[in-house]
């Protein structure tokens, strides 16, 4: 997403806007939610850091829609265009999540898998956002994809494929919605409060709740679901031994069973299975 925000940034820069782009992340690990921002303006930008009321909100990972800690609709307002990477129609997302403002959906993962062969979303996500701004031309998007992907030393063939995927997405997104041009509403007024001294057990950074790591299910990180063909499984336990997250257990019949609530889809079992009886299914309904 950092690269996506940079492609949008560079494309806007090429269109001679004032631009800022920045990513924000905490602990860096696979599957950790992260957010990146791009600001573009005809006037100098008198702001910095996170965007609190986005005009366009791109949700690249649909599994985050229901994740309270990710809170992907935070700050969206009537003027926001939300674009979700999903195969579901927009009306379904609106009904399930009660999204405020305009909503658009497009399965950019599918486009990336078909065209690039991998679920890398930087160019496709950027293309969708560029189109929704209504201010960035296809030619600037093209130049920006090439510039940004070259700067991370991607091979020429891969850049070509990314470009093709990006242009496909650019075409698939309808013309921008007029709401975008309405002025942003005044921030909801917050107020200053006075902090009082707290009991030191409250006022120090300590965690008392025990065993809560278990409550955080990691199954929705998965892009591919490993599926064991138990008919052909020889019960050799290789997958059980190799699973780095202890998500495979052995059942009473001595067969390996995958804990799909927590399997992150690393596919170590898929690669290690000596009989090749584990297949991988693309997760399209993660919620």
């Amino acid at each position: 997403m950092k690269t996506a925000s940079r492609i949008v940034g560079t494309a806007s820069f090429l269109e001679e806007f004032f631009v800022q782009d920045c990513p924000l992340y905490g602990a860096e690990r696979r599957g950790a939610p992260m957010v990146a921002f791009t600001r573009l303006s005809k006037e100098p930008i008198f702001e910095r850091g996170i965007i609190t009321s986005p005009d366009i909100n791109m949700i690249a990972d649909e599994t985050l829609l229901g994740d309270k800690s990710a809170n992907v609709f935070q700050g969206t307002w009537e003027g926001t265009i939300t674009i979700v990477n999903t195969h579901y129609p927009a009306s379904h997302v609106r009904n399930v999540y009660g999204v405020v403002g305009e909503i658009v959906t497009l399965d950019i993962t599918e486009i990336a898998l078909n065209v690039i062969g991998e679920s890398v979303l930087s160019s496709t996500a950027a293309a969708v956002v560029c189109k929704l701004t209504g201010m960035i031309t296809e030619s600037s998007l093209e130049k920006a994809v090439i510039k940004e992907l070259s700067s991370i030393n991607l091979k020429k063939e891969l850049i070509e494929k990314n470009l093709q995927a990006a242009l496909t997405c650019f075409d698939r997104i309808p013309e921008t919605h007029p709401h975008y041009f309405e002025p942003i509403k005044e921030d909801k007024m917050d107020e200053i409060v006075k902090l009082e001294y707290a009991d030191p057990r409250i006022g120090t950074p300590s965690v008392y709740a025990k065993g809560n790591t278990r409550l955080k299910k990691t199954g929705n990180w998965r892009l591919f679901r490993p599926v064991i063909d138990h008919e052909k499984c020889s019960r050799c336990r290789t997958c059980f031994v190799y699973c780095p997250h202890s998500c495979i257990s052995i059942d009473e019949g001595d067969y390996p069973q995958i804990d799909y609530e927590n399997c992150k889809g690393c596919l170590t079992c898929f690669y290690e299975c000596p009989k090749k009886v584990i297949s991988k299914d693309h997760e399209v309904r993660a919620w």
Partner: protein
Amino acid sequence: MVKEMLTGNYAAAWGARLSEVDYVPAFPITPQTEIIETLSQWINDGEMNAKFTNMDSEHSMITAAGTAAATGARVFSATSSQGLLYGYEMLYNVTGWRVPLVLVNVSRGLSAPITLEPDHNDILSTRDSGFIQIHAETCQEVLDTILMAYRIAEDERVLLPVLINMDGFYLSFTREPVEIPCKDAVSRFLPEYNPKHAFFKASKPMSQGVAVLGGSAYSYFKYQMHLASLNVLTVHDEVAGEFKRIFGRSYSATEAFKIDDAEYVIIMSNSFTIKGKAAVNKFREKGLKAGLLRLRLIRPFPSTELKAFLRGKKAVAVIDQNISPGSGGILFKDVTTALYHDPDRPERILSFIGGLGGKDIGHAEFKHIVEEMEKSIETGIVPETQLLYTKNDLEHINNLLNIAGNPLEGLEN
């Protein structure tokens, strides 16, 4: 000259590259790592003719930087937060050696609790070390200040190292259009470093940074550092003048924003200043005469300039993005000290603490500051230092505390 989308980190690397530094001792730390990664890549690719050494810690890194500078090499390095503190002991040594290197600090709140986002307790903890300190607001300013910093540090009237501060994330990882000056222009501005005082020659033995026993010798050398630092007030303006002549961009020790007719002035530093400028614009739309001062040169502290800017103002509010527990904001003291003896000083000077660990300073905060200034003028009462913390912030921390588990039964969070 080209304009590119650069992060603050990348802009810092360009500053070092254009300054044609000889030596980069390094140690990585988030959010500074991109600076030294970029430099090591350029040096490896032969785009930069310098020696790069990855050290075992910031303590060794600052030692290596200082000793290399003592031999007459032009030295650049960068660190952040815990790293700066880990090398802290050597900061006082290299200033005592009077060596003109440039060190970039990428601000990040200090542990504990550990965090990644910026405030200025890291950089301000070094304010008494003798380092010259310049705090930047934009990515362009990071690059430009590095070029200026070598000119200042290497000046015979100064010979002190310079620390340049940029905010983690808000500058370090934020890209914005930055003009990369061409090499010829930089060469005209910043000639090759040929020090008269520092050398390493077999025919000319010398000792640097020797031990002294007895307070009179110690006092003499320490006070020389103070005088050297004060000279920067003049040298900075000369260097900034020449920088403007060659590159067209202008930097002053203190940046004034809509200050001339302002009655209420907010004082800030670093990248959050832009939020203050936006607030000033909003207040002006509503007819309130607000203005802003950005403290750029922090050491030496430009007291005279500050006094002139604030003479006759109704009220001043200092927002410190740092906290000295048990005392309050650090820069508030410098500001009030500078103003105390001026007969025409502002009627009220208020102290606020905000943006700790990168907490946003939003419109509610600025509105509160202005209201407090007005109230203080009306009532004659000057409030104690206040933390800029909102109802939403309190709700947020209470949620987190609930998740963390409340050990006090029956106590509502």
